[in-house]
């Protein structure tokens, strides 16, 4: 699985400049083709108490040959959105703000419960079935808007150990 991922990353890294070299990107050298940068499975979990921040979760898939770095987010449904990371070390749960979440070329990083996540402050009155627009800011690519579906917290992830727990460093 991991080897296949590396092979794919390598193939993409090699094929990228050949395939997209002159024509698709034209003279513009910097930004990666947006089609190669995918945001999947965006969802928002309202706070179970109704009082705390909602959690925002999604998967970033970098099919380009360049790094893709999430540095912030906002939403019309929230007063502010922050990027955080949770982790458990020696049985202790930690959480800290995250400045940047890099996604290496050919890699994917999941923002999910127990790992990196967005926190939507002031996002009240959300119910499963609603949708929320998230605007994601990147250090090395144009911002992107995605529509996240609102799902119940602790539902589908009960006792679930993420297979792509991101080990991002601030």
């Amino acid at each position, binding site marked *: 699985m991991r080897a296949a991922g590396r092979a794919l990353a390598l193939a993409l890294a090699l094929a990228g400049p050949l395939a997209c070299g002159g024509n698709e990107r034209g003279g513009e050298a910097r930004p990666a083709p947006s089609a190669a940068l995918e945001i999947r499975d965006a969802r928002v*979990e309202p*706070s*179970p*108490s*109704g*009082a*705390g*921040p*909602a*959690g925002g979760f999604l998967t970033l898939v970098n099919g380009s040959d360049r790094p893709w770095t999430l540095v912030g987010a906002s939403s019309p449904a929230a007063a*502010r959105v*922050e*990027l*955080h990371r*949770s982790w*458990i070390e020696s*049985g*202790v*749960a*930690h*959480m*800290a*703000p995250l400045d940047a979440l890099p996604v290496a070329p050919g890699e994917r990083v999941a923002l999910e*419960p*127990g*790992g990196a*996540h967005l*926190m939507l*402050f002031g996002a009240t009155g959300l119910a499963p079935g609603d949708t929320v627009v998230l605007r994601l800011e990147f250090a090395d690519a144009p911002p992107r808007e995605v529509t996240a579906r609102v799902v119940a*917290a*602790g*539902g589908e*992830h*009960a*006792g*679930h*150990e993420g297979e792509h727990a991101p080990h991002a460093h601030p």
Partner: protein
Amino acid sequence: MSTPIGPQAEQSRRIRWALRIAGAAVVVLGLWFVSEVRRSLPPQAPEVGPAATVLPVPKPLPTFTLTDDAGEPFTRERLEGHWSFLFFGYASCPSICPITMATLRDLRHELVTGSPPLDDAQVVLVSIDPDRDDPATLHHYVHYFDPTFVGATGEPAEIDRLTRALGVFHQRTPGGSDDDYDFDHSASVLLVDPDASLHAVFSPPIDPAAAAEAFRAIRKARR
């Protein structure tokens, strides 16, 4: 077989008695020695598998006074007479706490639907964030996961009486903005027995089915 007569007979009878007494003494000493050795050995916790760490000797909890999610006092007495699963967290924790709360919900489901069904263990979330988690907030939070769950919090000194006795770590940390804060906190679930003593610890990641099985084994061993 002829019966020996005279001084030789008397002597052999004495020897036989001496041997009997010596034999009895050896048995008594041996039993005493075995019981002493056994007493000097550390008590053995029952084998319940890797899901839980059982304390060799249950640790009695001190008295404390918290307030539950209905606004009623929550004291040591509320932990007496039945088993309790305790978790320390806070309602505005958006990531780890909901995972643990959902795990506890699934654990309770395993117990209630298993064989034999066990419906007498309570699940308590103790909030380490009394400033933000008033009874109404806690009520919403715990009931979101299971209507039988209890939420409790109180004065920091009272929370600390409990966390110190249970070996639960918690510390306030800066959040993403000035008016926001988070907590680092133990992600373990603590099992308190009907004597209100810490009996076992479930460390993350907790598998609800494995934890339910371990709990059944712990109850059986204590009986």
